[in-house]
């Protein structure tokens, strides 16, 4: 039988727990890369968080959004938000804080492209629109959520699964944040949403996988915990593959078509974060959360005893 057919039938025999060193090494390398780049490059916080500059200009020449964006990019203002006021009568451009030279150049090209007379382009600082209060409230909600999830998983499945699930979640978030650090994409409120999506997805996926483990624990009376986890992972492997494909395809399609073919940087940034986060979420349920859980559970008396018995049985069989 081909590997593909075995996978489809849930009969593959990958040793997920036994090879945990390998998976942990991969994850550790990714985490190290993320944290290092975070330390070196830091996050590029968007205007919504740290504020920036707002330029406003009348628009007698009727310049289009793309034209304004292009001329600004030419003088080095890459991350500008462009809005028309009163159906295009004037233009409002919001940018991160610029150095004096770039600022002057931006005012000049903006005036040129809109046909505004000199002195008609105004510039002033803008404060963050996603300020401290919004950040604080979101973090509060997050804290409550994580607490509730630990309680819920402990009640519905078991406490150690909740901890393993949170470990996988931390892993996924660290990698996603690393992507933002490496690429230097601006962190916007949409990024916060992307992170929340990844958070939810990671836990969701872990619960689906652990639910299978818990089901097998109830019926398998002789197997060791590692064997049960391995069996559970192999039987959900087809599902995990199908699900990650169907979740990643729409996001991936937005990433490639939306960004590289049609050109929409906002979508590209967002989709990349989601793509990496969801991929990490699927990976970590199987390769981080599950081996971690098995490793920890094997240290419980009941399961050590069972492992001992299993070793003796296989010893007898060989003799």
């Amino acid at each position: 039988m081909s590997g593909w057919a075995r996978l489809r039938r849930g009969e593959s025999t990958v040793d997920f727990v036994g090879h945990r060193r390998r998976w942990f090494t991969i994850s550790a390398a990714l985490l190290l890369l993320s944290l290092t780049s975070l330390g070196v490059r830091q996050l590029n916080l968007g205007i919504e968080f740290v504020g920036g500059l707002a330029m406003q200009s009348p628009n007698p020449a009727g310049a289009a959004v793309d034209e304004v964006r292009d001329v600004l990019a030419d003088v080095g203002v890459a991350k500008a938000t462009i809005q028309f006021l009163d159906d295009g009568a004037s233009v409002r451009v919001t940018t991160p804080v610029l150095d004096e030279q770039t600022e002057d150049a931006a005012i000049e090209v903006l005036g040129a492209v809109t046909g505004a007379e000199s002195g008609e382009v105004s510039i002033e600082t803008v404060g963050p629109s996603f300020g401290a209060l919004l950040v604080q409230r979101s973090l509060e909600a997050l804290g409550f959520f994580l607490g509730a999830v630990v309680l819920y998983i402990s009640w519905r499945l078991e406490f150690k699964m909740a901890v393993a699930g949170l470990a996988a979640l931390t892993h996924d978030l660290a990698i996603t944040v690393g992507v933002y650090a490496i690429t230097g994409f601006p962190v916007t409120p949409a990024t916060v949403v992307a992170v929340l999506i990844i958070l939810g997805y990671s836990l969701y996926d872990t619960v689906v996988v652990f639910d299978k483990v818990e089901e097998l624990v109830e019926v398998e009376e002789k197997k060791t915990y590692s064997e049960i986890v391995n069996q559970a992972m192999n039987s959900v492997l087809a599902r995990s593959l199908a699900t990650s494909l169907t979740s990643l395809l729409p996001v991936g399609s937005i990433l490639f078509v939306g960004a590289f073919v049609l050109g929409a940087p906002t979508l590209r940034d967002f989709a990349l974060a989601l793509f990496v986060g969801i991929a990490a979420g699927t990976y970590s349920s199987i390769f981080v959360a599950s081996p971690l859980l098995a490793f920890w559970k094997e240290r419980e008396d009941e399961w050590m005893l069972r492992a001992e018995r299993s070793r003796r049985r296989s010893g007898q069989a060989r003799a």
Partner: protein
Amino acid sequence: MSETKTEVTRRVVGLLVLLAVAWGGVGAAIYFGLTPRLGLDLQGGTAVVLTAPEGTDRGLIEVATQIMTERIENFGEVQEPEISISGDDTVVVQLPGIEEEQRAIDAVGQTALLSFRPVLGAYLPEQAPLIGSEEPNIDPTTGLTIDDDLDSDSYLVYDEGLFTQVLHVGPAALIGEDVADALPLFDPNTGGWAVTLDLTGEGAEKFARLTAAAAGFPGNDPRRQIAIVLDGVVETSPPVALTVSPTTGITGGRAQITIGATEDAQVEANDLALVLRYGALPVDFEISAVQKVSGTLGADSLQSGIIAGLLGLALVAIVLLGFYRSLGLIAIIGLTVFGSLLVVSFALLGQWIGLTLTLAGVTGIIVSVGITTDSYIVFFERVKEKIRDGYDVVDAAAEGFKVAYRTIWAADTVSLLAAVLLLWRAVGAVKGFAMALLIATILDLVVAPLYTKRAVAILARTRLGTEGWLSIEGTAR
């Protein structure tokens, strides 16, 4: 397994009804022009530019913008405003939607000045002492103050519901800034509603002085009352309780305003608490401009997003067909049911509570499509498992659903927890995402038993599901 004909008929009818509701719903929504409201980033909206009086402290403006953020989301039907301080003394409030400019101005305009004032006298409207007066700031026909000033006496109208009075109030003793928090409270001892008031340290001292002075008057004297004034209108005017000592007043920075046990008391307590909490705007802004603004993402972004999303979904459909064959077909039809119900929900909630769809919401939906597809996959994998365990197709479908639905519930509960907690605490874009997640997760839980279970049960009894390469058994082998 034998089944009566009525059971089969019931299942088919149930399925057709659901399809009619979902697809018909979308058709009706489009026919009546009821489409989801698009958010600020996608469609643009109205910008209201507010200017603070010259020399206003920067810290006060920051406090005011925070209060505005909360007020706009709590009071009005406006979701996901974007508020930022611009320059030294200007606040730009951007609100989604362009067609209701007046509503946007109202939503911001409600951010009024709150003050606590000593009551110096109460009169029937026709006996107001300043009727016919020629004082500059007094309307001679009603005897009321035209432009309320916090630093001087005013004659203000107080509509108590049953009857109306004119209150003569002194200069403000406390302003909104002095209020730390206010909450509605049900008092089980009296069976009535009240509002608890928490004051800041400075506010507590001022409040003690104000209430001590009022407590010096006898119980039925109007001067025992404290008027709570919002933008020149007396919101309420409770008397200081008889137990309060005229030497100390109400100390400790906590007070309780008794509302009563009437039917409307709960609503009244709620509204008053909101006014006390968020109406406490320390800055008297002037609206200096109202402008239409275009979306920041632009139509091109939205369009490419939609095209890419549809392409992605087409790929998902191919994967589902390849992996699950006729079951995949069920999933694809199910996704259109899910999508239709989602669009209808957003259109209706846009009408009812002003729910707007931003980029964040759209992405929430794309991801929720992934999660709802997973519900199908979890179910189908269980069916395959049961078939390999030796069940016949009909039983495998029924048994598989039972176990799968447990898993779906377990995992969806995590999403529900996230959505509810985010809705409760978060503001702005995060709230929009939470709403999308909540709706999608509920639909996922509803569609599974109403559509998926029935559709697979029907498929298991047709030739499509039992014969050839497309069959359910073919999927399992």
